[in-house]
């Protein structure tokens, strides 16, 4: 059995908000509240959920941009927590990111060649010619001509800019790339190009992805495993195709039922769940989803369900528990 590239165990990130004078009376937002997952080498973990579910905080924890309040992350068998500055630097070579907006993530004052070379300059002590050769190779990887290196980002379209951002992420040959909504800012006809490119790169280079997006079909298409988050917790995690076809947690069911059809005749059960995602400052007791859940039972409001193995996946729902654990 292969070992996981990245393993997160009971990861928590709490933010204090609205703290009064002398730090009293502050509320705590449990942005990520006990999340465990693993990312296998050369595979994609897709994370879906609505605003405030904690998917972006999870990505930041994986990128070492936030320190977890509790829990651990192991990368390649080594714990991340407690790394010194040099260790974090080495870790960041192995983990890169591509963000949603390629207009914001590329410096307008740098030429594309310099943008792509920047991680090489930061992390590797290479000769000029070697850097140039690597930039050319990376541009070729992402389907841009070599002369692109001499141009500025504003001379490119959104899709091309996202290719540049991907080339920059690939520069230091990372093992994991965090993709935070990589295609949602792009035109519809461009999205398939970028999704295909990401897939091809994964096949060629064996890189793993943490793919965060609200477009469920794109996540299902790209991912090997899907984790569904709601108010800081994973409510369901399992093989992508199984989750997309037979979601089990009532929230996953509602989420996938809310996905738009791809054809007017596509039969889909309409599950319109009432209400909105509650504030993460004061999440509902028990199962966070119970006030909106069409199948809520009395115990759901008092007892938080644990994420348990069920069939081919893990689900956090009392419906799938049978008798309560002794």
């Amino acid at each position: 059995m292969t070992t996981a590239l990245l393993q997160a165990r009971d990861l928590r990130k709490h933010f204090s908000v609205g703290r009064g004078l002398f730090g009293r009376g502050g509320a705590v937002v449990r942005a990520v509240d006990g999340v465990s997952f693993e990312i296998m080498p050369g595979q994609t973990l897709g994370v879906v959920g609505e605003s405030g579910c904690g998917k972006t905080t999870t990505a930041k924890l994986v990128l070492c941009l936030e320190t977890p309040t509790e829990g651990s992350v192991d990368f390649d068998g080594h714990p991340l927590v407690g790394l010194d500055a040099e260790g974090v630097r080495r870790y960041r070579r192995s983990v890169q990111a591509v963000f949603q907006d390629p207009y914001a993530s590329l410096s307008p004052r740098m030429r594309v060649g310099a943008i792509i070379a920047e991680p090489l300059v930061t992390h590797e002590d290479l000769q000029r010619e070697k850097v140039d050769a690597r930039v050319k190779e990376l541009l070729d990887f992402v389907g841009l001509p070599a002369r692109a290196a001499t141009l500025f980002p504003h001379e490119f379209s959104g899709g091309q800019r996202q290719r540049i951002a991907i080339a920059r992420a690939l520069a230091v040959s990372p093992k994991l790339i965090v993709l935070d909504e990589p295609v949602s800012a792009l035109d519809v006809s461009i999205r398939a190009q970028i999704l295909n490119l990401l897939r091809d790169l994964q096949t060629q280079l064996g890189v793993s992805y943490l793919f965060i997006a609200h477009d469920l079909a794109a996540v299902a298409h790209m991912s090997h495993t899907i984790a569904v988050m709601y108010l800081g917790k994973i409510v369901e995690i399992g093989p992508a195709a199984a989750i997309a076809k037979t979601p089990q947690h009532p929230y996953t069911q509602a989420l996938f039922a809310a996905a738009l059809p791809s054809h007017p005749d596509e039969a889909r059960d309409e599950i319109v769940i009432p209400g909105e995602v509650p504030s993460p400052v004061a999440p509902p007791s028990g199962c966070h989803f119970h006030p909106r859940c069409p199948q809520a039972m009395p115990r759901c409001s008092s007892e938080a369900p644990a994420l348990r193995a069920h069939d081919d996946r893990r689900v956090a729902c009392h419906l799938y528990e049978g008798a309560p654990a002794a």
Partner: protein
Amino acid sequence: MTEPLLELRSLSTHYESARGTRVTRAVDDVSLTLERGRTLGIVGESGSGKSTLALTIMRLLPPAARIVGGEIRFEGEDLLQKSPHEMQAIRGKRIAMILQDPMASLNPLFTVGDQVSESLRVHEGASRKTAWARARGLLEAVRISAPASRMNEFPHQMSGGMRQRIVGAIAVACEPRLLIADEPTTSLDLTIQAQYLSLLRDLQRQHHLAMIFITHNLGIVAKMCDAVAVMYAGRVVEAGPIRQIFNKPAHPYTRALLDSIPRLTDDSHMRLPAIDGQPPDPSAPPSGCAFHPRCPQVMARCREQAPPSLTVAAGQTARCWLHAP
């Protein structure tokens, strides 16, 4: 046969640069019809002219834009012949609009009650008291809980989904005949989007509204619309009944667009059939058919001559030389 509710005839809107040297044909020779109570989807990518088309119908264009030709027949009248004052009486009363960002449509300094009752007072001359009472009923109709207390709250006290529902309440306040929704759910979460779309459908049934959905999302079209018009570089390249277009797209662009979208129902770990290249710069579209540089079935003729709108099936038209007799 009764007259359609809205009929656009060869409508063209151009943007001109300050010195008049650059002309962008944002909307180019667009003809469409919409029957009463029906829903038309207008899909296109950024720069395709779909939002300019909506603003043209509302006659809310920015100063740099000019309607250079065509007709907008609405309930038998040509809206292009109306004075700005007459248009004011039509907007919000007979044609209403919902924009993508509800915060941009709501005034942060007035209570929700003020804003929902405003159009009733302006367009129907309702008294403050009646308008307020009717506004409360409208909030209830758009499923806002505790409407009476929400009336005295400000937009910033509400969630994005609630704000967008309030914009919906304002839109239907004066019983318009036509509702134009420009990307109304783009800023909403998935389950909130589902709530909003089902709300719009209910409002449509109750008020016998005709709707135009401006969107880049073919899923919304599949879910909500009876007919669809696909725009590319300012032109309607294909239009027709929804099932016809999804089952038998006649224009290579429509077909490619439908194929390139990942589906939940796919068993896919295959590659998506992507469209090469990128959408054209609207100020410098390619010669002939604007799609020809990306078209897998391009012919010599496509590079020189723009194809006319050709009928390919009952109610379905396409601007493509493949369908020329």
